[in-house]
């Protein structure tokens, strides 16, 4: 008689994830995009700064597969390099925001008191403003640049994650197993780290993934407005900004980065949905 290997929880989840077509496509796309970002310098056929004024504003063809911009720089190479910044900004700003947001939210939700009241008040005020406005404000204060861009976007998402972490903490802290943990001798900080944190991570991971898409869009918007990363470093946003002037002559300068943004945003949305589908219902047993 054949002995069956007991199914692990993780195995079940991974299989469920892989069964979902959306999540596979999303994951696949993101893997590809990440690889492009990592190996950008090797993949890009041309140096992004190499200007060739004789070959300006070419439409897609050979050898410039996606055409050239107004300085004769290869469009494809610029788009490939742009992946690096867009992905980095998107992921890092969300990571920072999630990390700080969870810390503040968990502490406020668990300990309550005056700190909690203060946090809720500040969060409510900040969330009354549109996200882009918050990031713009911070960019004004901090000045342009890649790191300030990341900080600005992280700051604009920060209240949202505080709110989510706090709400989840409030409900998890009432669960009986938290009291059980106290009964075996866990202190408050141990409970926060070992019991509350793992139990609130699920929804936050899902939401975080979805907000990476938003972060990428906001980076593009900010760069488009001229507040993000400045040329000559290519980002999809500032490529659109420069390209818009030549829309009539060579729309590819706008279309290519625009499509790149769209595909990346959709990919992260698919991944986020996929993760959500496998997490919540499973957790309820």
């Amino acid at each position, binding site marked *: 008689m054949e002995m069956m290997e*007991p199914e692990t*929880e993780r195995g079940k989840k991974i299989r469920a994830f892989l069964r979902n077509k959306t999540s596979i496509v999303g994951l696949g796309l993101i893997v590809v995009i990440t690889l492009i970002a990592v190996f950008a310098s090797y993949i890009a056929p041309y140096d992004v700064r190499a200007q060739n004024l004789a070959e300006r504003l070419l439409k897609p063809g050979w050898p410039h597969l996606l055409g050239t911009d107004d300085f004769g720089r290869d469009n494809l190479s610029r788009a490939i390099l742009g992946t690096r910044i867009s992905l980095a900004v998107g992921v890092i700003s969300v990571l920072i925001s999630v990390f700080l947001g969870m810390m503040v939210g968990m502490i406020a939700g668990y300990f309550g008191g005056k700190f909690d009241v203060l946090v809720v008040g500040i969060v409510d005020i900040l969330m009354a403003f549109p996200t882009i406005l918050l990031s713009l404000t911070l960019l004004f204060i901090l000045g342009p640049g890649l790191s300030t861009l990341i900080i600005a976007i992280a700051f604009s998402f920060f209240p949202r994650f505080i709110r989510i972490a706090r709400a989840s903490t409030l409900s998890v802290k009432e*669960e*009986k*197993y938290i*009291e*059980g*943990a*106290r*009964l*075996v*001798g*866990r*202190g408050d900080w141990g409970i926060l780290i*070992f*019991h509350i944190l*793992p*139990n609130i991570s699920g929804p936050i991971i899902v939401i975080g993934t979805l907000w990476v898409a938003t972060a990428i869009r906001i980076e593009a918007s900010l760069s488009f407005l001229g507040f993000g990363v400045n040329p000559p470093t290519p980002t999809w946003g500032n490529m659109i900004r420069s390209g818009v002037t030549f829309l009539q002559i060579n729309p590819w300068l706008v279309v290519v980065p625009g499509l790149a943004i769209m595909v990346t945003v959709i990919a992260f949305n698919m991944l986020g949905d996929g993760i959500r589908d496998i997490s919540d219902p499973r*957790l309820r*047993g």
Partner: protein
Amino acid sequence: MAATILQLNELKTHFYIDGAVVPAVDGVSFSIRRGETLGIVGESGSGKSVTALSILRLVDAPGKIVGGKVLLEGTDLLKCSKQEMRKIRGSKISMIFQEPMSSLNPLFRIRDQIGEAIGLHQAVTRREAREKAVEMLRLVGIPSPESRANNFPHQMSGGMQQRIMIAMALSCRPLVMIADEPTTALDVTIQAQILHLMDQLKNDFGTAIMYITHDLGVVAKVSQNVAVMYAGKIVEYAGVYDLFDYPAHPYTRALLESIPRGNKTDPGNQRLKVISGTVPNLLHLPAGCSFYPRCGDRFEICAREAPVEVEMKPGQYVRCWKYNHG
């Protein structure tokens, strides 16, 4: 006679709600000896669970322990620091409660949950903690403990989950285990198994048990001594045989009479005997004896003054004017 392990002296825990004071535990005293099982009986709201939480100092605002002493082997727990209490919880005193299903963290494997209790109080490596956890599972009668240790809580039945709770509670060989209605949420056959298990482990480990319940049948089976609580006070304390054979307090008698039984002596009278009235609102306790409104044996003094505890015979105490004429 075995040594006293846990002693409560006039413990008072009050809740402050909207300016009013709710005396949830109002002067509770008893002691438990090594290896003894003390049954604490009472209706919902009598203060049984708050007493247990007070012993472990897990009463949160708006509740506050306002008086008395809780002596564990002579040390007053109410005077310990937070850090000292954390060392005591889980290792010297442990507790299991009613719904094992919700008492286990759904994200962690069984071996890690028991391992947590062990790791917090004993200097062991993670591997050693896991091995001890498996050993505890074996001791509480879980079949195939090595593989079941890797399971998650939702993969176990209610009875098994309660066994796991017991394993966690006894993993550090505590002096006292408080069991707050551990079998109420389980079906009767499982209840019998769990009670048997607890008794057996008590003998093996020498742990004293404080068994809180509203079920007199369970009390009869497991306890050596019984304390009956009503409205925050202990109204009667006796050895289990004395309590059931010669119940003194009117409340105890009424409780025993209200147990449904096939009435062979009086087949004509099949009515369930209930105690008239309801548990008093702790915000508006009557002056005098709290049981007065529902008592069948009333005296004039009962309405005016709360009775004091009187020792009827060695080891049997009652708080009732019937036995205290002056």
